[in-house]
Structures are given as structure tokens and as C-alpha cells.
């Protein structure tokens, strides 16, 4: 048979095996559908291979090294030696265990795996191009398709990623050595997470940010403890600075930035990491041939069943719009698969949590006080500082607070913002509270184990009701 001539068919075609696509494929398989999952690079997508998982692994490892060597107050004196190469190897081991698991789970659920890059031929078929010379391509016909091609880092003009001097987050997570010094462009969550890793491992870190604060997407009081700790780590911040160009100088580089008055600053370092955001991968799919348009940002518009303008084509995850988060991708993947299988599923969640794995962590879910007000609620706000938490003090990490936003007349919990130890875990209970239509009283009346950080959630609800025990009430 001539290469490029093969043609197969599938009930459901999933394009891209990130946390959107592989979850959709597995769920579709569970529901008895005939599914084919096409991936051009690596199972698990950005998240498992280059994003969430490697970054969190490096964060844990660098935290451990840092905490152990800063525990003299606990009577712990350490002489510490970090072999960065081995740390990266360990991280790679975690990644391959997980991506191997994804592949196995796909197969166990009856998903047909196909390697290659898919592009639409028409509304009911794609061409799957295999990498490498003479590997050819094949045509796959589908009844329904799920687009889950994810996102890629945005490049700033003049800062093309070269993997040597100018890095994206993926390359930064794969370096063989800790850089002696690094400039990070962008103080969003990816920039701030990696700034912490490198600073804790001994790099001189400089962060330049166009806006005027760290984590501009978050409320000021949530970002403040992160900034404070970053200052303690010696991270050097320059706000209101746009990265303009860079040049080699000696062993390293010089990065030139400009403020709004056009004044230029220069920062020398070994490398520069550009982390200024991500954009959807929708320009390499021949979407036009499927009759699907994208918005001006490149996102595909979808409805509450994850359907595009073509009823039989779904889009999920980063390509389907903000927030670009792995668990949003997975949720949409599940719903898309269930809708295709005829189940009464919909994207009707009330709240989408988000976490930033900085030191301290940030976790948010649902509405802020301002958003609640804008939506016509009469917000009441509870607050509980971790300084008043016995458990937090026993861990030596007692910065930050829990905040709960509720509707005063009804008592319904609407949102929560947490900065502090295990914030990423603590939002889970409040996510459930929001989905369940729980009231402040429900959260306050639930017995929480002592001594745990989760007691702070309960006391925060009590504080909103005016009767916390371990803090003075508003």
C-alpha cells in the first residue's frame, strides 16, 4: 500500500492527548464509544510533560532543600548539596511514570492511539501526518471530533526561543544546570513559580514585569505574601518594564527593557525565561476546512456542552478559552465525551478553582467580594489568618489567610481566596461547598479535625457569621 493512502474511520476522534484530550478519550471509551486519540508529541500534553507536573515536582524538591537549610529555629542545621541534574532526572522519572500511566489507561479503556499531527481535511475527516521523512499520512474519518490541541507560550518579538539563551518554561524546566543568574520576563503564575524554584536553588533571579505587581490576575492582598517571600528569597523585581531586546555579552546575555516613559534598563544574566502567557494552538489545524472560526485571540467558541459552531465537533481545554487550566480541560473533556454518548451532562459547574504553587501557595474558587457585589449579591466576608492556626504554627508556615465570600441574606458560600500553606488543597472543601449550595453555617457546623489547616476554613466561616473562636470577629 502506498504511504498516504491509508484511510480509517472512528466514531469519536480526539485531537491532542493533554489533560483535555486524554480524559475525553478515556471517558468516551468507558461509555462504549469507538475512540481514536491522535497525538503528535507526548501523551499527557503540556501539563504532564512540560507544565503542571514537572513544575510542581521541581517546586517540591527545591522547597525541601530550602526549608531544610532554613530550619535553624527548629534546631535543624544542614549542609546541603543539590545535584540539579539528578533533580531533573527525578522529575523526568515522575513524568514518565505518569505519561506511561496515561497510555496504559487509554488502552485499558479501549482507546485507539495514533501518533501524528492531525489537520482537518473537511468536516468529517482529518489527515494525520506522521513525523519524519517519508512517514506519510493517513486519513481518518470521524462522526464526532473533539479538538484539544492546547496552547503554546507566547513569544515576544525579538525574543525567539532558542533553548540556549532565551527559554520558554518547558526549556527552563529541562536545563542541565541551575543557571547562576536568570532574568524572568513576566510575573504571572508560571514566572513566579519558576522564580521561586531557581531562587531557592541559588540562582540570582531578576523578574521584570510590564504591569505593576506580581500575579496581576490575583487580588493585591493575595499576591502580597508571595511578593514578600520572594523579596526574602532575594528575587529582584522591576515593574512597569517591557522587555525590548537582548544581546549576548560575555558568557551570558543582557536584556533591555523599557518603562512607559521610554527609559531603558539593562539586566545581565546567564539566561532569560520568557513567561508572558500562552496562546491556543488553533492555527495549524486547517480549522477553516472544518468550517470552524476562531475569535481574534485564536480561541474556539463553545457552548455549555463544549460544542463548537459545528454540532458534531467539540473543543475543550486551552483551545476553548480561559481559564487555561488542566482541570478545566479535563472537566470539559469529560462533559464532551458524555454529551456525545447521550448523557445529560453540561458545563454547569458553579466555580472553577485555581491554584498558584508559589511560596506561599494561592488557591481561589468562585467569586471575589467585588465580583459578588457586581453580580448583585450582598457579600459578607470572613477572614482567618494562619497565624491563629495551631497547625500552621506547628509547620513553621503560618503566613497568609483564608477568606470566604458569602451572600449575607441567604448565607450561601460564593467564593473563597486562600493564600498560605496548602492553599491549593484547602480550596477543595470550599469548591464542594459552593457546588452544593452550602451556607456559612453548614461549613461552620461541620466538625474539622484538630490540629489541621482545614480548621481555618471552618473558623473563617464562623468569622463571617461573627463568632470565630480563635480570632476576633468583625
Amino acid at each position, binding site marked *: 500500500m502506498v504511504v498516504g493512502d491509508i484511510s480509517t474511520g472512528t466514531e469519536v476522534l480526539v485531537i491532542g492527548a493533554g489533560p483535555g484530550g486524554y480524559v475525553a478519550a478515556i471517558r468516551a471509551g468507558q461509555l462504549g464509544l469507538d475512540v481514536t486519540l491522535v497525538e503528535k508529541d507526548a501523551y499527557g500534553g503540556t501539563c504532564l510533560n512540560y507544565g503542571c507536573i514537572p513544575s510542581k515536582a521541581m517546586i517540591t524538591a527545591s522547597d525541601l532543600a530550602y526549608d531544610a537549610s532554613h530550619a535553624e529555629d527548629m534546631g535543624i542545621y544542614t549542609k546541603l548539596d543539590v545535584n540539579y541534574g539528578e533533580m531533573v532526572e527525578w522529575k523526568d522519572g515522575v513524568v514518565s511514570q505518569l505519561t506511561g500511566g496515561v497510555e496504559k489507561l487509554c488502552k485499558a479503556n479501549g482507546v485507539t492511539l495514533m501518533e501524528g499531527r492531525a489537520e482537518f481535511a473537511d468536516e468529517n475527516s482529518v489527515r494525520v501526518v506522521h513525523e519524519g521523512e517519508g512517514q506519510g499520512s493517513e486519513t481518518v474519518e470521524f462522526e464526532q471530533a473533539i479538538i484539544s490541541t492546547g496552547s503554546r507560550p507566547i513569544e515576544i518579538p525579538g525574543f525567539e526561543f532558542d533553548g540556549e539563551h532565551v527559554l520558554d518554561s518547558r526549556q527552563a524546566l529541562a536545563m542541565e544546570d541551575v543557571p547562576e543568574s536568570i532574568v524572568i520576563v513576566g510575573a504571572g503564575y508560571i514566572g513566579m513559580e519558576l522564580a521561586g524554584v531557581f531562587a531557592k536553588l541559588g540562582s540570582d533571579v531578576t523578574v521584570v514585569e510590564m504591569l505593576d505587581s506580581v500575579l496581576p490576575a490575583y487580588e493585591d492582598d493575595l499576591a502580597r505574601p508571595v511578593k514578600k517571600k520572594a523579596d526574602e528569597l532575594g528575587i529582584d523585581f522591576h515593574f512597569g518594564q517591557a522587555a525590548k531586546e537582548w544581546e549576548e555579552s560575555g558568557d551570558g546575555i543582557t536584556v533591555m527593557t523599557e518603562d512607559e516613559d521610554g527609559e531603558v534598563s539593562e539586566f545581565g544574566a546567564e539566561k532569560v525565561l520568557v513567561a508572558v502567557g500562552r496562546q491556543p494552538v488553533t492555527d495549524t489545524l486547517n480549522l477553516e476546512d472544518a468550517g470552524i472560526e476562531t475569535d481574534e485571540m485564536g480561541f474556539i467558541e463553545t457552548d455549555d456542552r463544549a460544542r463548537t459552531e459545528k454540532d458534531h465537533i467539540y473543543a475543550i481545554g486551552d483551545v476553548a478559552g480561559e481559564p487555561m487550566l488542566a482541570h478545566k480541560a479535563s472537566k470539559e473533556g469529560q462533559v464532551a465525551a458524555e454529551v456525545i454518548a447521550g448523557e*445529560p451532562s453540561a458545563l454547569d459547574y458553579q466555580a472553577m478553582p485555581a491554584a498558584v504553587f508559589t511560596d506561599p501557595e494561592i488557591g481561589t474558587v468562585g467569586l471575589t467580594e467585588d465580583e459578588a457585589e457586581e*453580580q448583585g449579591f450582598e457579600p459578607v466576608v470572613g477572614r482567618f489568618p494562619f497565624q491563629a492556626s495551631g497547625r500552621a504554627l506547628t509547620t513553621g508556615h503560618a503566613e497568609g489567610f483564608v477568606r470566604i465570600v458569602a451572600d449575607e441574606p441567604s448565607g450561601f458560600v460564593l467564593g473563597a481566596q486562600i493564600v498560605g500553606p496548602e492553599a491549593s488543597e484547602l480550596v477543595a472543601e470550599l469548591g464542594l461547598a459552593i457546588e452544593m449550595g452550602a451556607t456559612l453555617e453548614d461549613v461552620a457546623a461541620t466538625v474539622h479535625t484538630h490540629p489541621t489547616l482545614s480548621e481555618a476554613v471552618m473558623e473563617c466561616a464562623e468569622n463571617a457569621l461573627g463568632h470565630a473562636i480563635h480570632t476576633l470577629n468583625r
Partner: protein
Amino acid sequence: AEETETPEGRVFAAPSARRLARELGVDIASVEGTGPSGRVSEHDVRAAAESATESEAEEESEAVESEPADSGPATETGTAGGTGATTAAAPAQVE
């Protein structure tokens, strides 16, 4: 039948109640919640589905409710009321 007057038409109900509403073809925004502060329970959804079936039987031709149903998947079956009311309830999306 609308009761739960919350801003932006937000309905407070557990995920299982929302799903049941879609399954039974009930617009959850129009269900009277009998839980605390008007929270909608699965029981409320079933009651709404039943009364919808009844009133439908009584007055066949009464016009469509102001809230048009979202174009749910045609695959949805097993609806208590069959034809009328709504195929799939528009879940109260918080935009």
C-alpha cells in the same frame, strides 16, 4: 413557576440536582427550592417535573415559557414529560 430570586438568576442546587433537572427536562431556574434559603433539592426537581407533566396534560396548548430551552442534545431521552416543556434545561450558567 419561579421562586429562587437570586442575582443573575443563579440557582443554588447540588450537581446531582442539576443533572436530574436536565434528565427530566426541567428548567432548574424555574424550580421552587424548599431547602435552606431556597436551595433546590433533587426532591424539588422531581416535584417540578411531576407538576409540569400534570399541568401539561391539563392545558395542552398553553404558550411556551419565557425562558427558551437551550438546544440540548437531541440524544436526550427518558424525559418524564416527553414532548413539551423543554428538552434540556438551560443550566443556570454563571456566565
